[in-house]
């Protein structure tokens, strides 16, 4: 093999580089179809970062769950439940943010933990367990709100404008910072904590992990609980940005979160992946949607293009990975 070929192969061997390729392609598309320079304005990028933040928070929990070999369909419903509960507490009952935020987070944690309990204790398949929690949480949200949006009668409490604000001279949205904090936490868990090591072990081979002394049940319970917690934080941000609690909000967001994780190159089989990859996946999806929106593509075209690009990116990553492994065997 030529030196150039080997260099290329060694670059592509890194999953990070493989994930960056689709992002680079999307960015080039943006530079070509820039809409009179709108793509080059920082405001466009700030808006994109705000738009992916709530989905990204869900993707943080989803990354943990997917690495554990599971899936969490309930995140979008837990988000809606959290949004409704947050609005109900702050707007409906005038409870201060200092009390409402921890309470909502606790409810999210509990909702996630119940998924975890079903998966870890009762051996229900994650898809089925979280599907059940998804339906239940959506119902609970609707019950709490009476099927209506919970809005403020007068002035909005300060916490709403605080979350839906911009900092650093109006150059960064607060929700994006919240997302960044969630991402850093997830990265810490995966790469610095024992829980992270256990997580890869459980996702790789649950039985082997159990036999080597990993507390599998506790790990799974924690992972789903964390996913619920991130979904609750996302719900608070969603309510603040919408200025009300909408029981119908976030429908289908779980699929966006899964797409972000998968676009980054994390395998649904579990045991592999990282937060960095999900971050790149989130940026790829966010930029793609931003560019389609800037160019005012029709919904039909957007759906088809998004689907096609997800497939193309995943096939590309699989092929490179497969070739990579083939070379390793051969050499």
């Amino acid at each position, binding site marked *: 093999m030529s030196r150039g070929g080997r260099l290329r192969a060694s670059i592509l061997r890194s999953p990070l580089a493989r994930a960056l390729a689709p992002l680079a392609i999307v960015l080039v598309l943006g530079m070509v179809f820039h809409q009179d320079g709108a793509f080059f304005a920082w405001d466009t990028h700030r808006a994109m970062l705000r738009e992916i933040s709530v989905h990204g928070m869900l993707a943080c929990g989803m990354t943990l769950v997917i690495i554990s070999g599971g899936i969490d369909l309930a995140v979008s419903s837990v988000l809606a439940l959290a949004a409704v509960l947050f609005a109900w507490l702050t707007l409906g009952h005038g409870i201060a943010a200092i009390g409402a935020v921890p309470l909502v987070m606790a409810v999210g944690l509990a909702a996630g933990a119940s998924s975890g309990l079903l998966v870890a204790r009762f051996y229900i398949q994650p898809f089925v367990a979280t599907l059940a929690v998804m339906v239940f949480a959506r119902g609970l949200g609707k019950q709490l709100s009476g*099927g*209506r949006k919970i809005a403020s009668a007068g002035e909005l409490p300060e916490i709403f404008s605080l979350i839906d604000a911009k900092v650093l001279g109006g150059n960064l949205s607060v929700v994006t910072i919240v997302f960044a904090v969630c991402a850093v936490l997830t990265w810490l868990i995966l790469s610095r904590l024992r829980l992270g090591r256990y997580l890869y072990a459980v996702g790789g081979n649950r039985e082997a992990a159990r036999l080597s002394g990993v507390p599998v049940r506790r790990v799974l319970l924690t992972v789903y609980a964390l996913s619920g917690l991130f979904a609750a934080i996302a719900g608070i941000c969603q309510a603040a940005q919408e*200025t009300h609690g909408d029981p119908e909000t976030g429908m289908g967001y779980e699929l966006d979160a899964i797409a972000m994780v998968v676009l980054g190159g994390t395998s649904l089989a579990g045991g592999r992946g990282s937060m960095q990859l999900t971050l790149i996946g989130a940026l790829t999806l966010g930029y793609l*949607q931003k560019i389609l929106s800037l160019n*005012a593509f029709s919904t039909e075209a957007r759906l088809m293009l998004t689907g096609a690009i997800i497939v193309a990116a995943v096939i590309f990553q699989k092929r490179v990975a497969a070739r990579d492994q083939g070379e390793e065997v051969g050499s």
Partner: protein
Amino acid sequence: MSLRFVFWGAFVALSGLAACKSSSSAKRAGTAEDPFVIGMSQCNLGEPWRVQMNEDIKRAAAGRPNLKLIYKDAQNDSLVQRSQVEELVQQGIDLLIISPKEAAPLTQPVAEAYDKGVPVIVLDRAVQGDKYSVFIGADNKKIGREAGKFAARILAGKGKIVELKGLMTSTPGQDRHAGFREGLELDKHPGLEVVFEADMQWLEPNARKEMESALATQKQIDLVYAHNDPGAHGAYLAAKEAGREKGMKFVAIDALPHEGVKYVQGGILDATFAYPTGGAEAIGVAEQLLSGKKMEKKMVLGTKLFTRENLGKGGEPIE
């Protein structure tokens, strides 16, 4: 063996009971002691507008002790709604109010109920044929046209417009779009221009996203027209974040008391046009039908314009 006998015996007895019950139901007196039973089949209570429709029905029926209502929610599934209609007829209701999800799959069950002598009021979306008593609905195209005329008027025939559309694969989306363009009369007002349009699928977060793109690509925007209240609210939030909301007008459709009307009150929207649910009217018509009166087969509801000036008077009706 004896168990099977008991089972079948019970089955026969129960079906006999059910038959008795449904045959006797036709002779309800319609008094407070023996009220008329009305079945209300709603296609999807996931939408706030439909929650409002049920609310309007409930409020109108509250003052009438001679009416008793049974509510069903089909959760956006035509086949579920079909079986719910059949259940209601089985139960022996005196009158059916239905807001169907789709015309074709619900025409048959509605016709069957009508043929059995149950008067049927169809709300908002129509069914095929003529086997129902009264259709009550509003005209999306007409309301869109009023919104277009209003936009042309407050812009004095000159300005740049953003249109945030509902779902363009749905009839309300298509009609609110087509009507608006008619109302703008672009050939008569060369100064008006729709500079950006996008589907926001009736959803507020999507509307905000699309508006951000509009703001990024358009230096001047004078008016935003959204196909529903949440759409206009999302657009307002985007414009406010960009610090450009002051120079813009926001016009929406639906005027739900908890959404559009509240936004107008809060100075967020400049105007919203009511898309009436027909819930209250349905109860009025139901009473007439139950007392044996003949009614016009079609009842088209007018719209109402809500602006800051006329809020106190409860909006301005437009026929």
